[in-house]
């Protein structure tokens, strides 16, 4: 399982990358592998505001659908519209081309609640 050291993780399988006051969010390599071929991503609207733990987006494979939760609270400032036509980006490049949305961070201290790579791998191993 590929779990980059420089990212923060939620136990619900989202990764977060801080970029000043923004946080980029996607799903982990482990999550995309468990889901199988992603066929559709339901994106939030730019401008919507979420609290940490709210369901923000939905990722569908042929036989399952999973909610994507906000790892931290904030306002959606950008979504990866390329996923509408190329949902397979989530499988092929989960940490890069497959990012899902960017939040404007409401409270930076919420990032401290997230897991580091080691902590997340332990969570993932328990589920696999």
């Amino acid at each position, binding site marked *: 399982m590929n779990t980059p050291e420089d990212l923060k993780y939620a136990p619900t399988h989202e990764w977060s990358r801080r970029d000043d006051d923004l946080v980029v969010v996607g799903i982990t390599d482990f999550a995309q592998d468990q889901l199988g071929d992603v066929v*559709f991503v339901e994106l939030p609207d730019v401008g919507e505001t979420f609290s940490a733990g709210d369901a923000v987006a939905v990722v*569908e*494979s*042929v*036989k399952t*659908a999973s909610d994507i939760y906000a790892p931290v609270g904030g306002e959606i400032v950008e979504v990866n519209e390329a996923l509408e036509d190329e949902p397979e980006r989530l499988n092929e490049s989960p940490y890069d081309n497959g990012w899902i949305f960017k939040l404007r961070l409401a409270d930076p201290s919420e990032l401290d609640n997230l897991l580091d790579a080691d902590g997340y791998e332990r969570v993932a191993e328990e589920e696999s």
Partner: protein
Amino acid sequence: MNYLPHTPDDIAMALRVIGVDSVDELFADMPKALRKPDMDLPSGMDETSLLEHLRGLAAKNKGGGSSLLGGGVRNHFIPSVTPHLALQSEFVTAYTPYQAEVAQGILQATFEYQTMMSELTGLPVSNASMYDGASSVAEAALLAVRQAKKHNKVLISSGVHPESREVAKTYLKPLGIEVVEIALDNMITPQPEVDDDVAGVIVQSPNFLGYIEPMADLANAAHDAGALFIAVCDPLSLAVLKAPGDYGADIAVGDGQTIGNPVAFGGPHFGYMVVSDDLLRQLPGRIVGETTDEEGKRAFVLTLQAREQHIRRSKAKSNICSNHQLAALMAAVNLSALGPQGLRDVATQSVHNAHSLAKQLAGAGLEDAGFKVEAEPNFFNEFVLRSPVPAKALRRALADAGVQAGVPVPSAYGLGNAVVLSATELTTQADIDALIAALQNVGQPAPKQVEVAYD
């Protein structure tokens, strides 16, 4: 009668294999208090007695096959070939086509059905069918609210079938969605005020009374306010009338009985739902899609299933699970049997007969008795006849005279005593003559007991 293959030896052998002494032992998990309930049910019957019983019940019905009764469902011509093909036992006794490899028959037939409904409605994306027209209207309203997100109001024309409006309210009320009715003005829907919080505007054309609505104008009014426009149409009428896609409707729904299913005391028929590309992901119910198999051959599968209840569970777009596959298949076979010209012929002759009926009624000297045909605005194959006696009493009096006609118009329409009359391509001059004669009799000074009994 039963349908069990088990001989006493079979049962003994099976019990031995399972390792129990009796069938009752298999039910040991059931609390004793529950076992062997006292049920007031008759004993079973052999096939001859059974058929006699059912035929006896059927014989108590009178006047079946009338072509003068409408109100959403009508007796239309169904060629013999339609039920022969659609009701083959492979189609009748199959389950939902989850194993695509052994369900190409139903999957392909459904793909073809979706194409036909798309052609009729002028909209691109059809599901595999729904329960009936009324529940399809309710599901369309729910779809509009989902799509519009924060908007929580739906406008529905009173021209929409009263039963469809009732069902929409049943579905929407518990979710806190406001359903506002638009009253008709001279039999059709006036231009409504559409507020910003309206998610959808629902209009039926031809409407419940039979008249053709100004759909293009109504669609514009909805769209100007950012609401979806939902057209409710008898699919038979779409053989000749403008398609919902032509006037910009976002969703077309309706009951599909008229294009290939018998009236059957109201069901099973099927509902259809066809939507614009934008609404594809919000569409409830099953959908069949085309793909290829391992060898590159064309194949059909149920697709976009991640929207559905068996995967999304509490987050599904709807709880709808089944469709009305077999009834939809009847329609698909029937549309193929009729073809575009046959369907047009059926629709045209229905229109012709209905207008002929209206004209003959208007010329039959019934005004003095208090009857009045509402021949304006344009109607398709149903229209209103105002009556001097209450609608149900009129229907009963006609039935007593051997004529099955006159769907009562609910009093909420403000038309006083009125019924909807209908004609199809099967209506004959003899049917029309019988109706006129019966109306003339009703028009005579009524015997007292009729008014007392049925008022």
